[in-house]
């Protein structure tokens, strides 16, 4: 447990690290301070060898509602900093930005809108409470949606992403539809069981080889940026990087002996 953060909660439960958005009074909208804390929190959990899987969720009713427009509008320096970081694409608030190679589960509670989609697009696995709602109000307030929608389009049927981009605040997508589309892989009902289920899923994944998962994550995320044949060549490098690793003999040995494997920690 750490109290180094004002706008996030960072916890550890067994092998699962938790990163919890903690500005519930403003639906967990991200101000400048929170943005800086994200960079530190992802790095902290990424560097902790005891953490094998990371779950990201929101405190209070909602998951995340994008940038805190109220703060940005009244803080000239902060606005300028935000604009500059976006122009340079020098951003550090998701696990993908921070090159976290551990599996990341986003557990969406309540509303996820606008910039909140960054953490849906950049997670490996996404689950949601049955009362979760997704929408993208950017165009309704004269803003362009780009990075998070582009990330989503690479991972799911494009029409649904375009529809959300153009419908803005006038339509919401429910958890069931998000599941049908493969944007998320599980709907948790009743909603209050979301965290319990995320922990359970995290623990199941934590049983797998950390090194093999890291190399797999590099291969698969690399594939989203490449054509098929290139992606396979790139993936081969990460696959081969595991050859000779102790986990490659420990895995089959443990399987044959019907015991839990003892994996090497990630270095």
């Amino acid at each position, binding site marked *: 447990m750490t109290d180094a953060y004002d706008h996030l909660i960072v916890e550890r439960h067994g092998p699962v690290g938790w990163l919890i958005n903690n500005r519930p009074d403003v639906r967990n909208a991200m101000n400048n301070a929170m943005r800086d804390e994200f960079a530190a929190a992802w790095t902290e959990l990424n560097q902790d060898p005891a953490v094998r899987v990371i779950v990201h969720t929101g405190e209070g009713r909602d998951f995340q509602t994008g940038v805190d427009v109220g703060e940005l509008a009244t803080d000239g320096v902060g606005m300028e900093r935000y604009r500059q970081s976006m122009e340079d694409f020098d951003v550090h608030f998701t696990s993908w930005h921070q090159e976290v190679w551990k599996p990341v589960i986003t557990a969406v509670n309540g509303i996820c809108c606008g910039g909140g989609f960054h953490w849906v697009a950049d997670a490996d696995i996404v689950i949601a409470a049955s009362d979760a709602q997704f929408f993208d109000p950017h165009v309704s307030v004269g803003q362009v949606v780009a990075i998070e929608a582009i990330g989503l389009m690479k991972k799911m049927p494009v029409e649904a992403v375009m529809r959300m981009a153009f419908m803005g605040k006038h339509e919401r997508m429910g958890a069931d539809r998000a599941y*049908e589309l493969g944007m998320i892989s599980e709907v948790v009902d009743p909603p209050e069981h979301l965290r319990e289920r995320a922990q359970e899923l995290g623990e199941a994944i934590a*049983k797998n080889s950390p090194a093999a998962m890291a190399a*797999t994550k590099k291969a698969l995320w690399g594939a989203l940026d490449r054509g098929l044949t290139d992606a396979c060549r790139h993936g081969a490098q990460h*696959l081969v990087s595991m050859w000779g690793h102790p*986990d490659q003999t420990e895995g089959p040995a443990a399987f044959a002996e019907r015991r839990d494997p003892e994996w090497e920690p990630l270095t």
Partner: protein
Amino acid sequence: MTIELRRDGKVGWLIFDRPDAGNAIDAQMFIDLEAAWAELEADDTVSVIVNTGNGRAFQSGLDVIQLARNPEALKASSRQTKNAALRLTGWHCGVTKPVIAAVNGVCAGGGLHFVADADIVIASTDASFVDPHVSVGQVTAFETIAMLKKSPAESILRLAFVGRGERLTADRARQLGILSEVVEPGELRPRAQELGEAIAQYPLHHLRQLKRQLWAALEVA
């Protein structure tokens, strides 16, 4: 021979035939697969290829332990993996005819290659999909990469990271568009033959052109 080859009209059948071993790829099948694809590709009477398995399983991937007993095969497998130049599936072997995968049971690990690299995938209600690589300290790459490009990515990332802990059902795979049809087990082969015949009505050179163009689209970054 670890592969049963059959012809029914214009439909060629490539059937995994190690039913007692879950159709896992041993050293012999490793060699036989390349030859089997080449034979059906070269056969002018065949326009469409159906790929399925004998017994309860569809395909359970590389039989690593058996492969390790055959140094030649192991060396070839390692070289092909390192160079991203496997010779297991129709796509690997440059097959230009349409390929239908008919998944009759469990499809695990390297078995996913044959789903990823097929043009059309159908399954029986008995089919399920699981990728245990990371549960035994292995990286999953080629087969999940191709699936990632063809299906909603989150579902494939989940399959990859959950490992042995979870199976994807045929119904969910159909919903996600990983496959297009789920039928009763007894209906799988007749339905695959029927689909094959429907496609085989078109001139082979058109089918080849179409296949080449559509797979080329997956090469765009």
